[in-house]
């Protein structure tokens, strides 16, 4: 059985990447809360993760020798692909200067995102702990 760390860590590491990217987008929204004409954006997490996962099998290294290790299914999708899933927010209350940032909504989303990020970190930490205890044989 081929043992890949990427496989072992599973979906958590990809979710972590998307969460950190989403935090960036939301921070951008909050920084531009007073910029005229700025349109708030967000990442569709579900679609992004789907795309991220499907990217896993698409990207493979070329093997020219039978001894080369087949990389299929081990390389995670590129994080930049996730950007394709960015959507503009639909403003609840349009403002005269064309800005669609709702500070409170963005703050709540940022907080939620930070919590989810930490949740994924927790999962990853647990897995590392398991791995360590298995290696030590305790």
């Amino acid at each position, binding site marked *: 059985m081929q043992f890949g760390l990427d496989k072992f860590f599973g979906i958590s590491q990809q979710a972590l990447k998307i969460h950190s990217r989403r935090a960036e987008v939301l921070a951008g929204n909050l920084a531009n809360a007073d910029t*005229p004409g700025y349109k708030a954006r967000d990442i569709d997490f579900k679609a992004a993760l789907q795309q991220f996962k499907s990217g896993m099998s698409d990207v493979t290294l070329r093997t020219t020798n039978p001894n080369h290790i087949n990389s299929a299914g081990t390389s995670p999708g590129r994080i930049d692909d996730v950007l394709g899933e960015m959507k503009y927010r639909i403003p609840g209350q349009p403002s005269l200067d064309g800005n669609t940032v709702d500070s409170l909504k963005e703050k709540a989303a940022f907080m939620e995102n*930070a919590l989810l990020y930490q949740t994924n970190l927790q999962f990853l*930490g647990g897995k590392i702990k398991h791995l360590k205890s298995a290696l030590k044989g305790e």
Partner: protein
Amino acid sequence: MSLFNILDIAGSGMSAQALRLNTTASNLANAESVSSTGADVYRARQPVFSAVMKALGESPAGVGVQVNGIVESQAPVRKQYEPGHPMANGDGYIFLPNVSMVEEMANMISASRSYQTNSEVAKTTKQLFMRTLSLGQ
């Protein structure tokens, strides 16, 4: 790494809001600066914000904010008849800035709230960073 970008973005937001507070302070301080002509009287100043596209690294995910410039308000200045004033012109008029106290106070509160938001974002990001660094320990 996108967590680093967040610090840049939050930093740009804080610096922009600090500049906005700066103009507000200047406007409030000069609210009663008298002049004897309408041309050289102090006018309220406001910063113009715009989003920074692609300036922060190559990833266009989050965008920072920048101050494009500072514009002076074109609202008419106040003209007051005070012949006894040392700055009064030949007709006995003095000119007062077009600073609106109420607007400036509202502006100040809005700027300080936005500043707080950005600083909270930076703080949360720092916590996420520290958690990530201690992963697996």
